[in-house]
């Protein structure tokens, strides 16, 4: 009897295994002539997910012959996931991503050129500078639809009691004025408190995008079409200001240099920092987490000779080159980005729409939660400087991130920063442009 028990167990295990495997099989495939598209969305905040799902449902109800399946992706790993899907020919038909992630996919032939697929209404509605973010070579490989400027989220009480001039989108602080304001403000705040907290865990995009206002370009395209890095006077304004705030004036907290934006919020709510430069969409988190009675406001980021210009990498909708139904996919994108729908998506993500008509919606011009300040900045937003530079991700990770981090912490001076960004950087870019 005892020798039979293990056999019984083996049989049970085999049966369990068979049961498990049968539970894994796919259901029968449907083939009723209906076109089925997969839309991978990266929306993650509940309001945004709801807005996206509602729009998909509305489309499906109105288009029984073209059904869209909503698939949720994740910002955290979208590049690797898309790369694998493209290689395997299994990419979603409609792809939600950001413009700074598209270059390799566009040049690699993974995305469809939308130039002939999009209706005139949509092309005319989105400004030229936004289209530039998704234009690679002669083609347009995505529709930019949501964007966010970097703004200063400020503690209203501290700023009001200090008596400093509050900047507006029409009259922002200059970078010199900003430095002086933070210096003065820190003196009034007391020990252990700072006028500004720069969350610079990812310092490169912040520096480059804000640097546009001071005439920073860093990347220069030659007549042969090749891009090289050159560090000129304008490129040093923003990094120099931050460096001096941290290391000379002590008006910016050193400890937040390695933090992400969310990590600075407890200190901001606790009155330790008067201002935090953050992406516009962080307002959602602030509105949710701010202590009762805490008053905050949204101020434009400082401006330079070029005004409050800023680089942005808008969220985009693209169509996979392998999609068998590109025309229908483009029609779905057009539906998603009708002005009233773009407003819903913008409100859901607490971002600004790129569409001119959507941007004019009164709901996006209220003083509450700083919407008006952001909307006023929209026309100053430009394509991020590194947008179409091949090799940028490697330059960012291997060269620029450590160089900027060391510069901001005071470990290296501007001369060494410049040398590393330019000399080491050009070696990296050259490999991608042979």
């Amino acid at each position, binding site marked *: 009897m005892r020798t039979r028990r293990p056999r019984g167990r083996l049989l049970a295990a085999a049966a369990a*295994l068979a049961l498990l495997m049968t539970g894994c099989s796919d259901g029968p495939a449907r083939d009723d002539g209906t076109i089925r598209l997969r839309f991978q969305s990266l929306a993650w905040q509940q309001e945004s997910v709801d807005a996206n799902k509602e729009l998909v449902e509305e489309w499906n109800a109105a288009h029984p012959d073209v059904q869209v399946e909503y*698939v949720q992706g994740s*910002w*955290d790993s979208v590049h*690797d996931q898309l790369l694998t899907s493209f290689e395997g020919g299994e990419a979603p038909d409609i792809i939600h991503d950001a413009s700074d992630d598209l270059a390799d996919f566009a040049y690699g032939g993974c995305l469809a050129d939308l130039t002939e697929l999009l209706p005139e209404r949509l092309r005319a509605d989105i400004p030229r500078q936004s289209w530039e973010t998704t234009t690679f070579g002669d083609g347009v490989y995505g529709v930019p639809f949501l964007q966010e400027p970097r703004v200063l989220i400020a503690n209203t009480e501290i700023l009001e009691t200090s008596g400093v001039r509050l900047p507006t989108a029409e009259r922002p602080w200059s970078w010199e004025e900003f430095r002086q304001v933070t210096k003065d403000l820190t003196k009034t705040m007391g020990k252990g408190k700072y006028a500004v907290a720069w969350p610079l865990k990812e310092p490169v995009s912040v520096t480059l995008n804000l640097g546009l206002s001071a005439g920073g370009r860093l990347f220069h395209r030659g007549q042969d079409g090749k891009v090289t890095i050159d560090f000129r006077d304008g490129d040093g304004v923003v990094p120099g200001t931050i460096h001096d705030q941290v290391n000379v004036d002590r008006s910016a907290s050193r400890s937040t240099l390695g933090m992400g934006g969310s990590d600075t919020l407890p200190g901001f709510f606790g009155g330790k920092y008067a201002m935090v430069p953050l992406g516009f969409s962080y307002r959602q988190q602030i509105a949710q987490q701010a*202590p009762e009675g805490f008053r905050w406001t949204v101020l434009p980021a400082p401006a330079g000779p070029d005004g409050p210009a800023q680089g942005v990498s808008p969220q985009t909708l693209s169509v996979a080159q392998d999609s068998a139904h590109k025309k229908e996919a483009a029609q779905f994108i057009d539906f998603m980005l009708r002005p009233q729908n773009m407003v819903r998506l913008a409100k859901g993500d607490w971002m600004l729409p790129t569409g001119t008509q959507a941007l004019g919606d009164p709901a996006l011009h209220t003083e509450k939660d700083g919407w008006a300040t952001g909307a006023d900045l929209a026309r100053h937003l430009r394509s991020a400087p590194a947008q179409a530079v091949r090799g940028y991700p490697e330059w960012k990770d291997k060269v620029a991130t450590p160089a900027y981090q060391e510069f901001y912490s005071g470990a290296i001076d501007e001369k060494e920063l410049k040398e590393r960004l330019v000399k080491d950087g050009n070696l990296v870019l050259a490999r991608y442009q042979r």
Partner: protein
Amino acid sequence: MTALRTGRAGRAGQYAALLGYLVLLAFPFLWLISTAFKPPRELGSLHPTWIPVNPTLANFRQAFDEQPLLQAAGNSLIAALAAALIAVVIATPMAYTMARRRGRLTTAATGWVVVSQAFPFVLVIIPLFLVLKNLQLINTLSGLIMVYVVWSLPFALWMLVGYVRAVPGELEEAAAVDGASRLRTLVSVTAPLLAPGIVATALFAFITAWNEFFFALVLLKTPEKQTLPVVLTHFLGAEGVADLGPLAAAAFLATIPSLVIFAIIQKRITGGMLAGAVKS
């Protein structure tokens, strides 16, 4: 006396080190639990507390409302259980052969097992994707399970070889001398002694599959097939922004099965390891 005092001091030091280690291990988990029960305003507090001032279940409600956690947990459970079971079924006889039959082939096989663990995910994912696509196993749990089995097999094999070698060959010889057949020896003598090792290996394969993220992300397309680690990333936004409360609540729930399985099996592993170690 001196020796005794030194012994006490040494023991106290050992306990202090153990306590420090436990605190180090427990800290992230306890913080996760604390975060899961905190309302948004407490999450943004400059002076966070271990015990939530106004504990709430809202994060759990939100996590369940926003994401199909139960469905994803079910998928993870199927994938992890099947992967563990298949890995053990394949690895056990292989390990027995590799441990008992010494030769060039087994040496080469052992070398290959060790080397095969050195391949990073990113190196194999695209070829693997194409292979599974040809087999029409993309977007199926069967395909994912196959990947998990292959992925955990080398280490499972390596673990089990060690366990088999620890079982003295003399016991099997003694059984043979007593007239037991080969099968009877394996079933009645070797298998019971090997059971803790098999359980530990299955546990390893289960945990590996339960926590695995990247393969599941790439191979599973439709929402209803996604596993728990993939669904958890839906609480993450761009640039590391996270919906911290619901993320902590969901992550806390995701750790429970592992804890339960460890709690049930732990006694068996240690008990089995020690069985027969001392002559009575």
